[in-house]
């Protein structure tokens, strides 16, 4: 009996949390207009969410591209198809690895920081303080961070994929001797702008939306103790990773399903 009671409680808890999250998202989006009034808030957040994530994204992109170049070369050379290395690197980066890996890194780098920041604001009652001064904390704190995350994500993905393609070229034609012209021409002939690049871009928008939402909501919904903040931060990373990978599968099935 205890088991069922527990199960029911967990289920109900999950659904109420989902409901709170939805309302939270609704209020966040309702505050969008405040960005127009105070663009500086958005700019500050773009700095801490986007600019500070640049380095990790760029370096990871470079190494992911280089590894793809190496691995792809070993596999493709078995079939005498080294020339298609460019296509392989670019297709895997633009379609999957770019959006997914940068979203995971983004959740770890920026999402956890957002949750911890907002959780601490709640724990130290700064959010209540703002309400006392008749400042809406959602408009002032949450919405700019949400928009900054949503806008930064596609830019970071663009950076990641572009650097990855260059990294693959560095390894492929620099180290392993794939013809540089073939690397680019195979890529350009087979990567489609709408099917591959635009779809990757849409993925990055979805991931940016979901990661920012999860991170901010976990911070806002945290139990206001130090343990609560630490748990909320963990949950942000875990839940973001789940949602990114799950949504990626669904989006891939929708986008690339019928060819």
């Amino acid at each position, binding site marked *: 009996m205890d088991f069922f009671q527990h199960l029911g409680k967990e289920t109900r808890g999950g659904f109420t949390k989902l409901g709170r999250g939805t309302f939270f998202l609704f209020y966040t989006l309702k505050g969008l207009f405040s960005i127009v009034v105070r663009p500086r808030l958005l*700019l500050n957040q773009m700095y801490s969410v*986007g600019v500070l994530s640049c380095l990790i994204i760029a370096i990871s992109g470079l190494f992911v591209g280089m590894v793809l170049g190496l691995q792809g070369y070993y596999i493709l050379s078995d079939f005498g198809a080294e020339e298609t290395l460019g296509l392989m690197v670019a297709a895997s980066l633009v379609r999957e690895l770019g959006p997914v890996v940068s979203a995971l890194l983004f959740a770890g780098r920026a999402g956890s920081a957002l949750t911890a920041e907002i959780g601490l604001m709640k724990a130290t009652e700064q959010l209540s303080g703002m309400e006392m001064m008749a400042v809406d904390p959602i408009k002032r704190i949450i919405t700019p961070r949400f928009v900054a995350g949503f806008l930064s994500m*596609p830019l970071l993905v663009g*950076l990641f994929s572009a650097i990855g393609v260059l990294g693959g070229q560095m390894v492929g034609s620099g180290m392993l001797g794939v013809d540089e012209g073939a690397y680019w021409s195979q890529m*350009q002939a087979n990567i489609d702008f709408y099917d591959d690049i635009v779809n990757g871009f849409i993925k990055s928008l979805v991931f940016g939306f979901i990661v920012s939402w999860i991170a901010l909501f976990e911070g806002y919904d945290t139990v206001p103790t130090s343990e609560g903040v630490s748990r909320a931060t963990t949950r942000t990373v875990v839940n973001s990773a789940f949602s990114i990978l799950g949504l990626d599968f669904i989006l891939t099935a929708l986008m690339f399903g019928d060819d």
Partner: protein
Amino acid sequence: MSQSNTQDTLVGLFVAAGIAGLFFLALQVSNLSSFTEQAGFTVTARFENSGGLKVKSLVSAAGVKVGQVSKITFDPKTFDSVVEMRIFSQYDNIPSDVSASIYTAGLLGEQYIGLGKGSSDEYLKQNSEIEFTNSAIILEKAISQFLFKSAEEKAEEKK
């Protein structure tokens, strides 16, 4: 003030770098640069079987890309597959009696339409139809024909 100025600059650089990356992907990596809808005219050809031909498949003459397949439909009256292709307008002097065949690039590669030779004084133009066509070779058909034939031969030998 100076601190927020540097911050502005960094955000500006970040946005510029991100957009540059996206542009790089769009222009360098994808086929967008060659995608710009080239002016052309549409011709049709009827094939008994168009095999694995797809929209956007290549139309080539002597190995040079002269157009793209734009539409493939099935004609239930004649059981033909009607392939519409767009020939780029600079190739407006292809003789109207060329033959069109469906070939496969490499052993397992994509299928494409190859235009043969022609000698007519009239040229292909909008809505003209290519009369001489060769269908795609369906591997299973070819194999079964071969097996059937060799079995027949053996039967005749026994007689």
